[in-house]
């Protein structure tokens, strides 16, 4: 298409990140670095109770503190819709009448500085009447359980969730069902039927940068919010509803993010910052602390009951899944998490008979939402553990059994749904080779593997604009958020490749909804595929315009012209871009604007849209165990991702190394611990994230590159997949080492120690 025949100039190269220099010199700017003249600082008063009636909120004394600009309680929010939420508008900006989780905001204050704001909050008097709380799935699903919500909230703004199926009279806020084939008959005829239950804990994203927003209203009633968000357009539509404003009057600008991992999708602190800014008539910055972040969003915990049946020859006969996801006190995007993840429970395997059911269950805990993997890790933990249980029972090799059941390249995931776009067998083969599966493990060691296949969000829209300036440099306008994943670098690479420009002639503009075009979200591993393709199209649009101008100048058909090193060439003739623009506009000025739109639209599949690509990742762990303490050590880990093509191999490796380590976190250490409705470890003294010392001595990331991805140059998404196989790979290795099958995460030393003590029979594994 472009570039030198047979290869690429920039795509496929590990070019330096375009933001690396500013980041190593301390010049990179994040939300917390932003200040505006007259800016007020906001703080929140949070509920100490998991569930309580708000009898009385008295903010009078707080308002009297010198330097306080505004103190808001729910009753003051008369100037806006006080509810928000992407799936259900069930979440109040400030608790009204009832608090539904410990840490829910009750009062917000904006003051001249943080100290004054804190002083004011000390003077707020709140009278609570404690109500019985449900903090576990068991409590929430018990007959007659206290209800977290009693009123039906308004529908949110997502079409795929327009028909949320709550179960009236219970804490179930949404149910998902999917059936294919006839599971009952398949089970009856199966050779082996396994039924097991797996549990996944509540996990905190722990982005190094907590949430934050800075809001300012202008004199014409327009609103600007600088937000640490992964999807500015969702924030915009939330604020548009809340303040009854046209989208065109709202501007969401996004600086660099200090990590996201899904925790910064959808509105979080932006509505409160905007409300405070409205009342104070000045810019208001609301920065979350780490403790606040623990009370803002988390990963949904889950209890997953799986039935997995096999034919005698090892083929999967049927799969049934009953999953309960604990989504906390407000829905956030959890309804989509549960249906999207549950729909792909069968992962990379061919399963004819499938019956899936999942519940999104409210509890009195921090709301659950999106988190790297979007519900899939919770299910894969169970399914991939059971693949090994099955291999053991069938006397089969775990790699072999998986290979037998893998979907083929081009095979539809489900009838009418996106065909498999990678070569799953190749991934499995590469993995087995990388961890030397066929070689016996050394004494005291064991290996385990796991595989996963995940859908990206659909329907999905990404748009891009490429502007080629008169001097031959270019801007790429996209709303992809740079949160560490390297998207800005990758977009620049794609544009530079197509435009035949050096990388330093291309600059990607930071997201700003009033300037950069629509993009649904920077999540779901979708940016390289969707936005990347839009950038490719937009750049190609510019190239086509250039060739047309050149064709006009040269009197040659445009189709015969190519671009090379910043010029359109035809044989020995070379027309540099500035000259072409000069000719076109008749002056040194003007610009060529290219446009790219990627919008696959709706389909008739179960969720109304077919994934634009399949994210495929497999992982293999080799472990040792301190049998006396129960502590697992990961000696070696190999991760294989099918990415179609690496646009930037170093950044792909960086993504997967990070994903594996984050996966090790929830596999071995991480868990938000509640007692009596109180979160006990909302800080790093009690919540343990992986450290440098936890990196396995050998950590390898491999990529399958067949150029068969749906994205630009045959690339596709990466970033979530690497995290997902970690838990079952480690659990499978542990089972092979000890005969002990763990079914609950994290596999902390104490939990493994207990399991080892309860062990009744020695391992039957090879």
């Amino acid at each position, binding site marked *: 298409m472009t570039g030198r025949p047979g290869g690429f100039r920039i795509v496929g190269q590990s070019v330096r990140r375009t933001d690396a220099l500013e980041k190593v010199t301390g010049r990179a700017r994040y939300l917390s670095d932003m200040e505006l003249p007259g800016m007020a600082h906001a703080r929140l008063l949070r509920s100490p109770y998991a569930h309580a009636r708000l009898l009385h909120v008295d903010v009078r004394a707080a308002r009297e503190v010198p330097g306080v600009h505004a103190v808001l309680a729910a009753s003051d929010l008369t100037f806006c819709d006080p509810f928000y939420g992407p799936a259900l508008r069930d979440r109040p900006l400030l608790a009204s009448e009832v608090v539904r989780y410990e840490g829910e905001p009750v009062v917000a204050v904006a003051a001249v500085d943080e100290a004054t704001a804190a002083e004011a909050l000390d003077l707020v008097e709140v009278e609570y009447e404690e109500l019985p709380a449900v903090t576990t799935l068991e409590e929430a699903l018990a007959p007659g359980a206290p209800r977290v919500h009693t009123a039906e909230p308004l529908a949110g703004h997502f079409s795929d969730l327009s028909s949320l199926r709550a179960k009236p009279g219970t804490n179930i806020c949404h149910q998902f069902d999917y059936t294919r084939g006839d599971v009952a008959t398949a089970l009856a005829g199966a050779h082996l039927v396994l039924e097991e239950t797996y549990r996944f804990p509540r996990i905190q994203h722990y982005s190094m940068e907590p949430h934050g927003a800075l809001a300012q209203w202008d004199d014409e009633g327009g609103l600007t919010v600088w937000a640490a968000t992964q999807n500015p357009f969702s924030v915009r539509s939330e604020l548009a509803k809340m303040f009854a404003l046209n989208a065109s009057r709202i501007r969401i600008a996004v600086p660099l993010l200090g990590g996201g991992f899904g925790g910064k999708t959808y509105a979080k602190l932006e509505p409160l910052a905007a409300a405070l800014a409205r009342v104070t008539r000045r810019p208001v910055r609301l920065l979350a602390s780490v403790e606040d972040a623990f009370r803002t969003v988390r990963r949904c915990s889950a209890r997953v009951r799986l039935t997995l049946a096999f034919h005698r020859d090892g083929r999967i006969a049927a799969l049934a899944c009953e999953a309960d996801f604990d989504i906390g006190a407000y829905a956030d995007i959890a309804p989509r998490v549960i249906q999207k993840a549950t729909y792909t429970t069968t992962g990379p395997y061919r399963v004819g008979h499938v019956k899936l059911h999942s519940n999104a269950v409210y509890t009195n805990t921090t709301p659950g939402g999106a988190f790297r993997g979007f519900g899939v890790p919770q299910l894969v933990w169970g399914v991939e553990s059971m693949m090994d249980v099955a291999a053991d029972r069938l006397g089969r090799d775990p790699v072999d059994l998986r290979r037998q059941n893998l979907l083929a390249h081009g095979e539809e995931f489900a009838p009418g749904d996106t065909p498999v776009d990678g070569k799953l067998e190749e991934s499995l083969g590469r993995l087995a080779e990388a961890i030397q599966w066929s070689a016996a493990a050394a004494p005291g060691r064991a290996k385990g593997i796991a595989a996963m296949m995940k859908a990206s969000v659909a329907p999905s829209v990404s748009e891009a604009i490429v502007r080629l300036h008169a001097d031959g440099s270019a801007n790429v306008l996209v709303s992809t958020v740079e949160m560490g994943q390297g998207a800005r670098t990758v977009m620049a690479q794609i544009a530079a490749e197509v435009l035949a420009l050096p990388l330093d002639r291309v600059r990607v503009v930071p997201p700003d909804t009033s300037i950069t075009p629509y993009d649904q979200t920077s999540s779901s591993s979708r940016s390289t595929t969707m936005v990347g393709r839009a950038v490719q199209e937009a750049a190609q649009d510019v190239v086509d315009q250039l060739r047309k101008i050149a064709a006009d100048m040269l009197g040659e058909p445009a189709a015969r012209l190519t671009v090379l090193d910043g010029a359109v060439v035809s044989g020995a003739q070379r027309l540099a871009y500035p000259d072409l623009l000069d000719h076109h506009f008749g002056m040194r000025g003007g610009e060529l604007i290219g446009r790219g739109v990627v919008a696959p639209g709706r389909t008739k599949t179960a969720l109304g849209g077919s994934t634009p690509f399949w994210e495929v990742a497999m992982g293999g762990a080799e472990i040792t165990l301190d049998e006396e303490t129960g*502590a697992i050590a990961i000696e070696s880990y190999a991760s294989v991702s099918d990415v179609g093509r690496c646009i930037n191999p170093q950044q792909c490796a960086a993504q997967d190394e990070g994903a594996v380590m984050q996966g090790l976190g929830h596999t071995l250490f991480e868990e938000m611990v509640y007692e009596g409705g109180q979160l*006990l470890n909302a800080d790093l003294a009690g919540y343990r994230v992986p450290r440098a010392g936890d990196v396995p001595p050998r950590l390898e990331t491999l990529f399958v590159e067949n150029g068969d991805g749906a994205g630009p140059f045959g690339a596709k998404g990466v970033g979530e997949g690497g995290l997902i196989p970690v838990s079952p790979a480690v659990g499978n290795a542990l089972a092979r080492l000890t005969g002990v099958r763990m079914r609950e995460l994290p596999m902390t030393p104490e939990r493994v*120690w207990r399991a080892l003590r309860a062990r009744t029979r020695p391992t039957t594994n090879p």
Partner: protein
Amino acid sequence: MLRPFALHRPATVAEASEILAQQGRDAALYAGGTELLLILKEGLLRVKSLVDIKRLPGLAGIRADNGHLLIGAAATHRAVEHAPEVHARCPLIARVARHVANVRVRSVGTVGGNLAFADPHSDLATAFLLFDATVRLAARAGERELALGDFVVGPYETSRRDEEILTSVRLTPWPAGTTGAYVKYGLHERPTLGVAVALTVAGGAVRGARIAVGCVGPRPQRLAGAEARLGGWSLADVERRAGEVGAEAAAAVDAVDDLHGSAEYKRDMTRVFVRRALLVAAARSAGREGHERHPHTVVV
């Protein structure tokens, strides 16, 4: 964010004590601040004054004193890690100091602050117990010296009176022929368990044993029963029967449930790590260094 306070920088211990006596619970002693500033930021403690004692003359010193090792309360962990006097007299303490918390806390945090805060999940107090540590408390009225075991009375609780200042800790170096080890284990920021052991061997037999266990309970403790069991054992006995001592220690230790683990688990880990620590000490006594590596475990 910290709420306002006045910062006092007294020139003498007497002056510092005077301020403390006048202000009582409205004043807090400040040295490294690594613990104090945290609870102040969290609003769990509100004071009108901080009394900065780290500049008091001599308080940061580390020196030999009549055969003992005297560590000034304001000496940082980092200073302890590097001090030649510590390496010469109580080398285990230098090694323990090198692994306290993280490098930033070690740069700033002080020995006195660590002991006086009495966080049950701390390394130093456990290791100090092995050196029959005493602490010196000074006030206007005079000084007193207390055994460390009498000073730390519970979690975050010491017998320091409001007007008293912990000025130094005195360690008694081990007799010749003594080797020791400190082993800590844990997943979280602070250890789940710390075990310090020392064996004095003469004529091929254990003549004295010291075992201290910390972090698992309200305060670190010496385990006399377990120590006594080792008396007269040969190094071979220790290597063979260390598990018995571990079991004895586990039975004697006071363990509590917390986020670091259940009391039951901590008790069993006491068994495991007392044995492991004894094996390290015994191997060192026999002139062998090197030990098996275990996850989440630091051996010094």
